[in-house]
């Protein structure tokens, strides 16, 4: 499904019926990359032995109190700034109550009333049609970013009728990023999330690896006819990759359209994406409509942040967070990096997207450019068409490439100096993939791929060819 413009309509399922406008919003939970948890000193680590990273506070032992982790606040401020948000100089913490085995305190500490950042935006790009030839830029509004605790994990062992609870993850810091329903299809959502992922990884505020649960996306989907109010929305959960995100959303859009066109109604429910079947199924909704009984967290005073103007003179700078100081130290965001690549190397915008989309590829490209006289515009072709497609074919990351940037640069230099033809170069590259440690020059010599530079020698060869083909030559000359 591809929509052409914001709120672009999907072709109607049945002829003669009014078109449908799908509406997609996202709630994204990004695990903060920090040494310790949001309110306690226990470590943050993926795949540690169960219940080995649990402090007294995480286990909700009576009498324990939350202590805010500075690094988590900085991560949220960085992310807010990168997403063009207003950072709230005063934000508050609240308790959200519900009973579940992986929530030891019976409530989650979150920011419901006044979150740390609001009113931002994220720009992302899509290609129109599947060729990377035409890109269009879109924007999605960021409603807010809030700090909150992650829950533990519970595993249901139906065979033994028991639930196993691992609290390692309980209390890890999360940034919940809420994206307004400005998207209209799976592809847009996927592109937006991909861009967010790149931003988070560039900032270092989250490693944002979906497979490790560091980035979780829930989609809110509804459809309506143009001019009519928004339809009932469903929430889609259990999406484990960006690819599945697009699939899940598109499936859900189609499901809703079909349902409505058949005279049915959409329930305001939560549905899980089943990646094997490629569809969404209703989740067992045990609690019905939950009243979370929000209440201010009494053990945490309001979070006060400063900027250069409001920072009191005598304040110990270890004790406070200065938003301007953080802003000055933000690294180049992906969009800026892309612009720079385009400007510096004269490559196409869509090339810059691919370079950044692949971890390490931009760096590889720049290294090669440094070490070769070949124009970047030409180098990019080798990077994107040859290197990247080979890596993709063999499911390798740039880091795992058997051909290093030095080796590729050597090869391109041979080509540039016209010591080999481009066909020969491709042949050499194919050999290099084997990773046997031979240099390009060695392979050229081995396979006798050197280009002949000597004019006389060339004339001799040509003459010999012509001499051997007298008849064809006679036919050719008059014409």
């Amino acid at each position, binding site marked *: 499904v591809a929509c052409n413009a914001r709120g672009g309509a999907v072709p109607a399922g049945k002829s003669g019926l009014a078109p449908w406008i799908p509406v997609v919003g996202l709630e994204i939970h990004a695990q903060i990359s920090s040494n310790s948890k949001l309110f306690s000193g226990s470590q943050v680590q993926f795949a540690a032995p169960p219940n080995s990273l649990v402090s007294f506070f995480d286990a909700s032992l009576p009498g324990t109190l939350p*202590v805010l982790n500075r690094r988590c606040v900085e991560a949220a401020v960085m992310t807010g700034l990168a997403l063009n948000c207003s950072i709230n100089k005063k934000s508050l913490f609240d308790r959200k109550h519900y009973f579940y085995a992986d929530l030891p*305190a019976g409530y989650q500490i979150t920011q419901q009333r006044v979150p740390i950042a609001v009113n931002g935006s994220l720009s992302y790009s899509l290609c129109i049609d599947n060729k990377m030839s035409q890109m269009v830029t879109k924007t999605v509004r960021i409603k807010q970013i809030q700090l909150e605790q992650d829950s533990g994990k519970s595993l249901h062992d139906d065979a033994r009728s028991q639930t196993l609870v691992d609290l390692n993850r309980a209390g890890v810091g999360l940034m919940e990023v809420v994206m307004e329903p400005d998207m209209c299809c799976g592809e847009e959502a996927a592109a937006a999330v991909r861009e967010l992922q790149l931003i988070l990884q560039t900032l270092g505020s989250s490693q944002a690896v979906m497979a490790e649960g560091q980035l979780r996306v829930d989609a809110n989907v509804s459809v309506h006819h143009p001019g009519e109010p928004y339809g009932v929305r469903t929430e889609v959960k259990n999406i484990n990759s960006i690819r599945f995100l697009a699939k899940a959303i598109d499936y859900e859009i189609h499901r809703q359209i079909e349902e409505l066109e058949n005279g049915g109604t959409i329930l305001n429910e939560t549905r899980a994406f089943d990646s094997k079947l490629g569809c969404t199924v209703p989740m067992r909704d045990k609690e019905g409509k939950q009243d979370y009984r929000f209440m201010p967290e009494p053990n945490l005073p309001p979070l006060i942040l400063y900027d250069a103007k409001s920072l009191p003179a005598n304040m110990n700078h270890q004790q406070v967070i200065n938003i301007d100081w953080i802003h000055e130290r933000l690294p180049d965001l992906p969009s800026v990096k892309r612009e720079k690549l385009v400007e510096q190397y004269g490559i196409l915008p869509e090339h810059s997207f691919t370079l950044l989309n692949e971890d390490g590829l931009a760096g590889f490209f720049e290294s090669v450019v440094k070490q070769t006289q070949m124009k970047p515009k030409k180098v990019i072709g080798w990077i994107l068409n040859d290197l990247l497609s080979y890596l993709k074919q063999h499911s390798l990351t740039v880091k795992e490439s058997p051909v290093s940037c030095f080796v590729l640069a050597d090869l391109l230099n041979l080509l540039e100096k016209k010591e080999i033809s481009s066909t020969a170069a491709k042949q050499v590259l194919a050999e290099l993939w084997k990773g046997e440690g031979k240099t390009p020059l060695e392979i050229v010599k081995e396979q006798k791929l050197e280009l002949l530079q000597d004019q006389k020698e060339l004339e001799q060869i040509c003459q010999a060819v012509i001499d051997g083909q007298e008849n064809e030559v006679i036919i050719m000359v008059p014409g």
Partner: protein
Amino acid sequence: TRLKEGLRSQVSAALKEGRVTPTELCQRCLALIKSTKFLNAYITVAEETALKQAEESEERYKKGQPLGVLDGIPVAVKDNFNTAGIETTCASNMLRGYVSPYNATVVQKLLDQGAVLLGKTNLDEFAMGSGSTDGVFGPVRNPWSYSRQYKEKSVPKPHSEDKESNWVITGGSSGGSAAAVSSFTCFAALGSDTGGSTRNPAAHCGVVGLKPTYGLISRHGLIPLVNSMDVPGILTRCVDDAAVVLGSLAGHDPKDSTTIQDDFKPFELPNLTDVSKLSVGIPKEYHAPGLSSEILALWSKAADLFKNAGAKVVEVSLPHTRYSIVCYHVLCTAEVASNMARFDGLEYGHRSGMNESTESMYAATRREGFNEVVRGRILSGNYFLLKQNYEKYFVKAQKVRRLIANDFVKVFRSGVDILLTPTTLSDAAPYLEFIQEDNRTRSAQDDILTQAANMAGLPAINVPTALSERGLPVGLQFIGRSFQEKQLLTVAKWFEKQVQFPMIQLEEVKRQDNGVFQHQKSASFS
């Protein structure tokens, strides 16, 4: 004798000079605890560890290197403070047998000073109550029930009633700690104060009960009732001792984000002689319905005492006082509902045998673990926190709370240094009479004079003043400015000296001190 002495001047000096050893002191207290077991003041007596601590203290004294004034001093701690290795039950089935892996900050501080922890004292379950009658280990008896003073005044009942049934309550919820201090089984005890839980039993048991300013002493490790109002409370036999204990406990704790950052400097209380520069406020609203004529008279007498000594005594108004009960009820139950959510039987504490489903296990665990009072407050609190009720009740109550706090700000700004009020409506009620009304009714009645200080976060102290007609203690309360504990305690000490509250005359104590007993007329020793 030793047991009846104040810390700073007497016992500490005696320990230093070797006239008594920490071990002797500890053993005597332990023996007294045994002989006063009928008071039911202690839930757990940590005999072994206490003796060990006493031995270690003794070593230090031998070397001439005591850690401070509190080194070797026997203390008791209310059973809602976490104590590593010693059961912490909150007088509830939910935490019966629960042994915490960590010490509350205040407990750690006492231990770091060399204090000897005798045991954990009894309370109303989860500190909910004003009688110390609603815990699973039974009610605490006021030591004064067995005092000569009370027995002399008691009218002998015509029908053959077990004289045991005449005993009076300690007040609550820190009744065990108040009784422990009052009966000389320890020199100081920690309580907690959320709506008056330290001052109320202090008044009924004739001891000093200090509620510090909110944010001065760490709550890390204090199992919370109402996080925004709870403070650790200090119970001692004289004001000087309260100042000593305060000095060892106060100060910023990084583990408690609600403690203030400012440096705290422990202080010695000056001997105030000239009160002519003092302005004492008498809040007219504290002449509450149900205030006994006896206490009213005493309050009046106290005001005259200040006036005659040259202080300025003025009537002031705290107009929103009458809303404090309702306001407290909403805010307290809401926080209780939230704080009790963690007791689900999964990680620690009682777990029901019901295991059909997680939900049914939760429900059974909580019904079995909590008493009616706790369950009632949870239900109320959840009601007030429902989305449709939140604005009407919780937010409204927060606004009223602000008004109550502002009443105090205005009065203190108008030149008043300190407020003088009664602590309780009457002297301690007999247990059988007290339990005629339910916990909620009692709490609502009894907290009226003490609650507002918790709403406003202000420091307040009960000073034992005189004996009632029934021979039971009556105390008066001083409320001070935020973080002005030094001024508050200085005035309290002056007042204590003026009133010369009589010492309790207990048979059991007499027996313990046989041979070394010196008759003392008052409990203050400055």
